């Protein structure tokens, strides 16, 4: 799982039927101390995350374990909205 920040949304009309009703967001990975990292990911939102919010994203087949993503063609899902990161 990685930390990421929501930076945008994706709208797709023509898509797999199993993706209908799912929110697709563009997220950008961030380091635990809050700095942006390279790249971006299109991710399915399962927690109603908002713009600029820091989230936890899970990738790979584990994304399908998220509630609401069973048996869907999804390889990345937002599974949490970060309250706090404590670095020791």
């Amino acid at each position, binding site marked *: 799982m990685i930390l990421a920040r929501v930076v945008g949304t994706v709208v797709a009309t023509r898509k797999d039927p199993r993706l209908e009703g799912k929110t697709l967001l563009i997220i950008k990975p961030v380091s635990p101390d809050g700095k942006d990292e390279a790249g971006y990911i299109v991710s399915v939102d399962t927690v109603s995350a908002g713009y600029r919010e820091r989230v936890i994203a899970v990738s790979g087949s584990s994304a399908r374990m998220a509630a609401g993503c069973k048996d869907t063609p999804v390889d990345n899902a937002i*599974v949490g909205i970060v309250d706090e990161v404590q670095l020791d």
Partner: protein
Amino acid sequence: MYLGRVVGRVWATAKNASLEGQRMLVIQPLTPELRSTGKPLICLDSTGAGAGEIIYWVRGREASIALLPAEPAADTTVVGIVDTIHLPTAPGVGTGEKGAESRPAGAAAGETGAQAALERTEAGPRIAQTGEAGAQTAPDGVPAATNGAQSAPDGVPAATNGTQAAPKDPAAPGASRTPTHRKGRRC
């Protein structure tokens, strides 16, 4: 499975229902020589690992299997806490004397007892030959055991236990982490 160090924690109130009740840790992946490699990541925890501890973690679908029967939406999970690492062939870890040198260096860098307790020596008998190395193992190992029991990481109490025999060291972490290892083996 990969090695890593616990460097922080993450809290999230709004999260996927499958993640309810799961601990989330910030992990810095490590090489077998315990150097940092790659970016930090968020892991679920099946072991109760504490701050600064060296752990091993799994990636992929297996990560949620480690937490059966819950099967949370996780792609990385901590499945074990490392007691010792032996690297006979690694460069720069050739002799017991070198291993003894590396530990004070780690302590100077502000690292916790858990890492200092890790032995990077050639073989077990080698430690016995080098009296100094054995003497250092005991005080370092004791705070490592207290880390496993979730108390505050603190290297200072080591001084009071300096007279403990080295053979007691492996037993202490083993005793405190028995439940941990059972969980680890389950997957």
